[in-house]
């Protein structure tokens, strides 16, 4: 196991006596894309703000590459590139002038700016004023400023916001490449669950300021819960339902779209089919419905 680059320990945030973040503990490792999920108002952005020092930490700590964001802010944040919510830039300056502003603060060279501009595909518009940019272009510029100083940790809050499908795909591939090839830890927060499913290696779900789950994406979707909904196209439906309810009283049974839906393990599919056939039910088709991140997310957060 690699050494964690970001360590969050019992992190709390109290605003006006109200606990917004109630003790988060998790680590993020180099080379992974970590998805930060949660309903609106769960505390995702607040946590991200604490990670980059925009908001103070009430209790606990965040360390980045061993440096505490509270005690050693400059050293800790030097390793971080981020977009927090919208990539707000100086609209009266050009994209290039904006990047020069940040380059002066982190000591990046002119050739690094040119390199990064090429990388995010803004060569043609970089000398135009930012007020002429589309949201997608501003996202790209935001990504450019975040990567300017070659950070070890990249934090992106809703990065696909405003990108077209091609742009989203490009970003996804690029983030994965950054993680794989440059060993950067990428932290992404988003509401777009289908997007996160394709993008992330690991996810953390936060709800009402508490961490509900931190898990590998595959394990999370398919992991501990082996039961998946299976649809049996049968006739007659009512007879089949009655028999099944008697035979498998512990399974969830429902009727949906003229099919009998059972939540069962993979191994039980054959047993159920043969039971139905033996009881005079005609079977026309069996469909196993794979779960998506969305299903699992709603399951976990509904508890």
């Amino acid at each position, binding site marked *: 196991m690699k050494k964690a680059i970001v360590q969050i320990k019992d992190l709390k945030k109290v*605003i006006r006596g109200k606990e917004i973040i109630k003790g988060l503990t998790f680590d993020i490792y180099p080379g992974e894309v970590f998805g930060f999920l949660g309903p609106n108002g769960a505390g995702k952005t607040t946590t991200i703000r604490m990670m980059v*020092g925009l908001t103070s930490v009430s209790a606990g700590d965040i360390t980045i590459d061993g440096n505490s964001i509270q005690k050693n802010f400059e050293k800790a944040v030097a390793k971080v590139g981020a977009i927090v*919510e919208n990539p707000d830039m100086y609209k009266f300056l050009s994209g290039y002038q904006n990047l020069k502003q940040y380059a002066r*603060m982190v000591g990046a060279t002119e050739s690094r700016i040119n390199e990064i501009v090429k990388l995010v595909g803004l060569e043609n518009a970089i000398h135009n004023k930012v007020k002429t940019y589309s949201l997608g272009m501003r996202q790209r510029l935001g990504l450019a*400023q975040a990567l300017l100083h070659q950070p070890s940790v990249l934090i992106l809050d809703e990065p696909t916001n405003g990108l077209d499908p091609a742009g989203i795909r490009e970003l996804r591939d690029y983030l994965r490449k950054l993680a794989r090839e440059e060993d950067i830890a990428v932290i992404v927060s988003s509401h777009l669950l289908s997007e996160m499913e394709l993008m992330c290696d690991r996810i953390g779900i936060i709800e009402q300021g508490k961490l509900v789950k931190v898990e590998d994406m595959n394990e999370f979707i398919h992991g501990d819960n082996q039961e998946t909904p299976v649809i049996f196209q049968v006739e007659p439906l009512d007879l089949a339902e009655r028999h099944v309810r008697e035979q498998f009283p512990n399974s969830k049974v429902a009727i949906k779209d003229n099919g009998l839906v059972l939540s069962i393990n993979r191994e039980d599919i054959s047993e159920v089919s043969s039971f139905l056939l033996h009881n005079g039910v005609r079977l026309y088709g069996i469909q196993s419905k794979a779960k998506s991140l969305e299903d699992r997310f709603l399951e976990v957060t509904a508890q």
Partner: protein
Amino acid sequence: MFFKLIHNENIKTSFRLSTWIMLGLLVVVVLLNTFVGGYKQPADGQADLKKGIEKNTAILNDKEVDEDTKETVQKEIAKSEYLLTHNIKPYTIHTYLNDEQGAIIFFSAFFGIIIAANSVASEFSTGTIKLLLIRPIHRLKILLSKYVSALISTAFLLLLGVLLSLIAGGLLLGFEGITAPHAVMQGDHLVKETFLYTWGKNFLLSLILPFFVITFTFMISTVFRSNGLAIGLSMAAYFGSNIATIFMLKYTWVKYTPFVHTEYLSSGEALIKGMTTSFSSIVLGAYFILFLAIAMITFKKRDVAI
């Protein structure tokens, strides 16, 4: 690093449209005063002085004129006589530059207030503060670079106004008057002094109030993150301070308010008894430190949630 931060701030200021409007306005005002102000160098200044004395003597002998006017006239006569006996030539450019001084300081202070008010507040209102504060730079360095940059911008405007009026005035009225001697009151008698020296000294002393108000603006902008509020309060302080101070003169605590001291230090006029330069400097210094400390503490502690 700190200079790079100041450079960044200067760039932001120089690319704002409002900066160029201010700059244009300053140039227009200075030049307007030059060419429609009706300034003209007299052909024979000495003769004019003599005529002036005769006219003023007539006023002194007039029984209908009140005592106050007579006192002013008396002073004018004394000055004219002093100039004549010391063979000092009167120059119109002196009047011109004194008028310009007021205009330049007025506009530069106004612009300085706007720049200082926007400096911090606009970063919050546009959301750009986020990408500014996630750099590996201490927050106080960023704040101080903004303050210094606002002062530099104001100084730049002042310098532009000064150079412009010296050149325009010189072209119109001749350059020799700028470095010629003139008469100034020192205590209760007149002395001879180089005009540029007196003018420069007055100019610098008159900057105490703008400097003080701009620092105040900067604090309000940082604490309330609202440029409107910062501009409003600062304008009120800048223009209303004298009137407000006059109303407060009957209270003893007025000696701890800032504007009796800015007035005393810049013009030497003591509004209350027992004013000294050192006491005024201490009181103003204390306000200055207080303003900056409040700005720094709130900026350092602020949770950025936009």
